[in-house]
């Protein structure tokens, strides 16, 4: 079932794409989205490769991913809270090192 590997590769792609965005995008909301995309990539890889055990799919990675999704939403809520706190004190919702002088 080569489609499983295709999904796993898409997972890898999402992970690295998210990593790139996390590094280069200045706005914190974009960084938070990037981390969520990276997480989805890892989850996709985990679950897709669990499908290699035919006829019964391996559910252990699925359970892990459900755990991971809950952790991700908790972390996202925390990150958004921090972001809003930060943008109250300095406009732009960016980390100091990403703040450009010209804008």
């Amino acid at each position: 079932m080569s489609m499983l590997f295709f999904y796993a590769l898409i997972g890898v792609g999402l992970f690295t794409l998210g990593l790139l965005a996390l590094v280069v995008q200045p706005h914190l909301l974009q960084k938070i989205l990037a981390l969520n995309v990276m997480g989805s990539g890892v989850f996709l890889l985990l679950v897709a490769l669990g499908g290699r055990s035919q006829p019964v799919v391996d559910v252990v990675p699925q359970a892990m991913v459900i755990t991971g999704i809950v952790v991700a939403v908790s972390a996202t809520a925390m990150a958004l809270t921090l972001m809003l706190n930060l943008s109250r004190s300095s406009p732009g919702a960016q980390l100091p090192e990403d703040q450009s002088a010209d804008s």
Partner: protein
Amino acid sequence: MEAVGLWQSAFDLMLGFSLFGLAWRMLFCADLFKSIVLFITFGLLMAIAWVRLEAPDVALAEATIGAGLTGALLMSAFAKLRTLDNSLKSGQPLLPRPRLHVINFWIALLFTVLLTGGLAYAVLSLPSHSPGLSDAVMSQLDSSGVTHPVTAVLLNFRGYDTLLEMAVLLLSIQSVWSMAGMSDAGEVHTSPVLNVLIQLLSPVLILVSAYLLWVGAHAPGGAFQAGSILGAAGVLLVLSGRPLFNLKKSWLIRLMLVAGPAAFIALATLTLINEGQLLKYPVANAANYILLLETLATVSIGTTLLALFVGSQTEAVQQDQSHQ
């Protein structure tokens, strides 16, 4: 049957590339609002992907949390951000471009491409067939107390992970409250149509939550999905402008937040004393224990997600700390 396989492959290819393309457009566009809408769409497609990967439990979790609640969280946070940041008020905010030097950008890109290649190579080197733990799960399923394998893993085989996970949820609300202060989400004006909508939706949401909780023992569903639906019901009520409850004062809310983790710890202690191992259920009682844990976990997860939604929106308290 051959043709079906072919069309399914076409569907999978289309879906996979769309996911990647969506992520790309979401992460590299200059309009935050567009990014958020794309993120919600991304969640929809992820849920369809989980279905294709025979992971309906994950699809349920993604549909409620990934696409639903995270979307609402992002949407609300963006709204708040706009009130704080004048540059975003003008409808079409133009974000600053990446400030990286062009050369640095290309280095980052090159690194990303190399990393992608390396990881892809590693993934493709995996054996095309691997049993994983499916045999172990299936052979012990009978003594787990439930017939749905995902629930068996989450609540029994790897119940200790779930215990710690409940601690993560408790931490998240403790964290949001300590960072942002607590407040009550009370919006004054309501809209009649919205009210009708919510009056009709909320009972269905609560029913579906209960249904998913119950069905989790033998079919996709369970505490996380049921809890997040419950949380979504609460979020809808808050959004409709109902003064739902006084989060700061209510002891009851704290109790609901703690109920899930407390049940896990109480049961872990009980089983440690009685059975000698934490969260080792006697086979005869396993089903009841799991149902108890799931019910309380559902309450806690729902309350936590709602409180996270409300809490992350509120003003930070830094100095005032007015305590009674």
